[in-house]
């Protein structure tokens, strides 16, 4: 936090305010001890935390502020495995047992509230403006779309929060990210965030919390803002957030964990105060012209290695510094791409539509809009995986499942699926996918697999064309 020489608080950013309101203890030369309002758990990064807890004879301080789900390793196939098969997966057994032992609410596979941790939190109304939220997952930044301070933590920190409901945190720097203008038709929030990461690099946000603002963000749905905040971490940021506004309040109203009636009015009055002060100072500022953007696609093995879909695969000589040249050479080899190839000429073996980045109902609609009246190419495996049971139910209710099925595509069950390939949804070595996930790292979608990160609209068009494409490239239905 920033004070003037007279000890008077200076104009503060929203992130500063949320931080200030959660300080449990402050001492010179020590990190601030921050209170955590919501602690989310999933099955992969938590078993060791619970083991350590038991070994030390410690307990969970606030099970009522903790929520568990299973998402990373759960099956998404429509011929659903038996419960026995599920429980043989030991992490799933452990998150269930650990939650039961410590009195933590847990939504297992099959529950109508089950889903990817960053999809169900907002759906349930658990991410409310001004809160601090942590989870053992880097994409916790998603919840920042609601004006929360939300960040990913490691397993040792999970144990720390379970025991104390607090975390020692060193101060963050503030970065203002302004997206000006308006998006052309066919350009999506995913393209905005890919273009941003391309501009500032995978380390561009290190140590910062990004505050997204500007006309493009103002006009964006909550789903779109979640996509943008989700990938703030891919630029190295600790967190990303958007100040709450009428769009936020409309999304929250009538959600299960959101107050109603008179209590709603009181919350609303408080939430309206949650904005950065005029004159608040940002350590770093970035501006991106949203009007100039076109659909973006990654060509390499980190999320900053991307180009507009209309461009070509770059060559090493397009980069000047040694680090970028080395990284490009290695990425081109891994991706099996020849410099100068038009991105639209890159054929794919698979398409993945889903994940905490793009597994919400708007994403399902965007994919269905492209697939309606069309067929997926014969040689392309298409996985459409909703982010939650609720998203799936809504997709069925809106008739999207029929659209997918008519296109020869199955609407699967909720989970992280091929985003991280911790269940059986994965690519084979050398296979290439257009994917709405967040990371194109080597081996992310299976050992030796090649990933092009794209928007849901581009993914769906690619499924039809069999090569990287935007909806505008497709012929008549």
């Amino acid at each position, binding site marked *: 936090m920033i004070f003037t020489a007279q000890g008077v608080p200076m104009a503060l950013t929203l992130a500063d305010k949320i931080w200030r309101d959660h300080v449990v203890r402050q001492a010179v030369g020590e990190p601030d001890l921050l209170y955590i309002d919501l602690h989310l758990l999933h099955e992969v990064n938590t078993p060791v935390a619970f083991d350590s807890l038991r070994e030390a004879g410690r307990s969970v301080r606030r099970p009522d502020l903790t929520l568990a789900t299973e998402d990373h390793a759960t099956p998404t196939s429509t011929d659903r495995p038996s419960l026995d098969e599920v429980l043989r997966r*030991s992490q799933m057994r452990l998150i269930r047992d650990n939650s039961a032992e410590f009195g933590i609410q847990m939504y297992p596979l099959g529950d109508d509230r089950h889903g990817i941790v960053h999809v169900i939190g907002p759906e349930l109304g658990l991410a409310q403006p001004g809160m601090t939220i942590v989870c053992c*997952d880097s994409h916790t930044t998603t919840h920042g779309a609601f004006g929360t301070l939300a960040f990913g933590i490691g397993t040792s920190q999970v144990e720390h929060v379970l025991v104390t409901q607090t975390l020692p945190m060193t101060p963050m720097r503030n970065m203002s990210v302004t997206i000006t203008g308006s998006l052309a038709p066919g350009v999506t929030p995913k393209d905005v965030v890919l273009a941003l990461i391309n501009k500032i690099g995978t380390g561009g946000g290190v140590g910062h919390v990004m505050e997204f603002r500007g006309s493009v963000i103002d006009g964006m749905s909550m789903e779109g803002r979640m996509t943008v905040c989700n990938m703030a971490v891919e630029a190295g940021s600790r967190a990303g957030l958007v100040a709450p506004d009428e769009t936020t309040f409309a999304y929250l109203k009538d959600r299960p964990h959101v107050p109603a009636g008179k209590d709603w009015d009181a919350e609303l009055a408080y939430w309206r105060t949650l904005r950065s002060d005029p004159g608040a100072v940002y350590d770093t500022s970035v501006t991106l012209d949203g009007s100039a953007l076109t659909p973006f696609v990654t060509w390499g093995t980190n999320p900053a290695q991307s180009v507009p879909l209309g461009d070509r695969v770059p060559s090493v000589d397009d980069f000047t510094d040694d680090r970028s040249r080395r990284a490009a050479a290695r990425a081109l080899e891994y991706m099996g791409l020849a410099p100068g190839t038009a991105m639209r000429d890159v054929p794919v073996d698979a398409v993945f539509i889903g994940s905490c980045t793009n597994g919400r109902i708007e994403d399902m609609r965007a994919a269905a809009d492209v697939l309606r009246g069309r067929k997926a190419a014969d040689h392309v495996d298409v996985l459409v995986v909703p982010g939650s049971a609720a998203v799936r139910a809504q997709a069925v209710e809106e008739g999207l499942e029929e659209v997918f099925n008519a296109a020869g595509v199955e609407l699967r069950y909720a989970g992280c699926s091929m985003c991280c390939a911790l269940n059986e949804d994965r690519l084979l070595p050398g296979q290439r996918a257009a994917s709405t996930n967040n990371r194109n790292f080597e081996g*992310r979608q299976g050992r030796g697999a090649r990933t092009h990160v794209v928007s849901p609209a581009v993914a769906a068009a690619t499924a039809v064309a069999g090569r990287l494409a935007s909806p505008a490239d497709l012929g008549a239905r």
Partner: protein
Amino acid sequence: MEAFTVHTDKAVPLRRSDVDTDQIFPGRFGTRTSRTGYADVLFANWRAEPDFVMNKPEHQGASILIAGADFGTGSSREFAVWALQDYGFRVVISPRFGDIFQGNAPKRGLLPVTLDEEIVERLWALVEAAPDTRITVDLVRRRVSAPGFAVPFEFDDHTRGRLLAGLDDISATERYLSDIEAYESRRRPSLPTTVRHG
């Protein structure tokens, strides 16, 4: 936890940037549930390549890893730290670290040391020319030294004190229980709980 004070050993020059946690600890091994036993998993995909630097006989037994910028970006998986430690690393040097990794590493005693890109280049050249070069990482004096030069590094006082004493930070926070209780008594009562409605 073992205390970290001064560590002197051979180093491995990993001339790669953006070494994300999926490379350090490939996700397919992330279905395991223990905290140890990951020595073989470390960089598993890269170690399958015979000419990968860690496979070279001259770098066997080294416990200091010198990597390019943005080491440990990506997933929050603490498996990445555990695998580095299980393999035997006690220090990772890089011009810049992923934030979550940088926080995770010292939790159980792995030291992330940030040095300028040119210093890292110099260390790479030194170790490649003479793999037996011994590098000293001194957390007491916050200094990295090798034959011919020494450079300071920044490291926050709080974490340094904890590492020098070999303390975990849950015990440290538990001393402030009364502060936590006081905070809870003034928290806004309208904040949500996860108790299921309906």
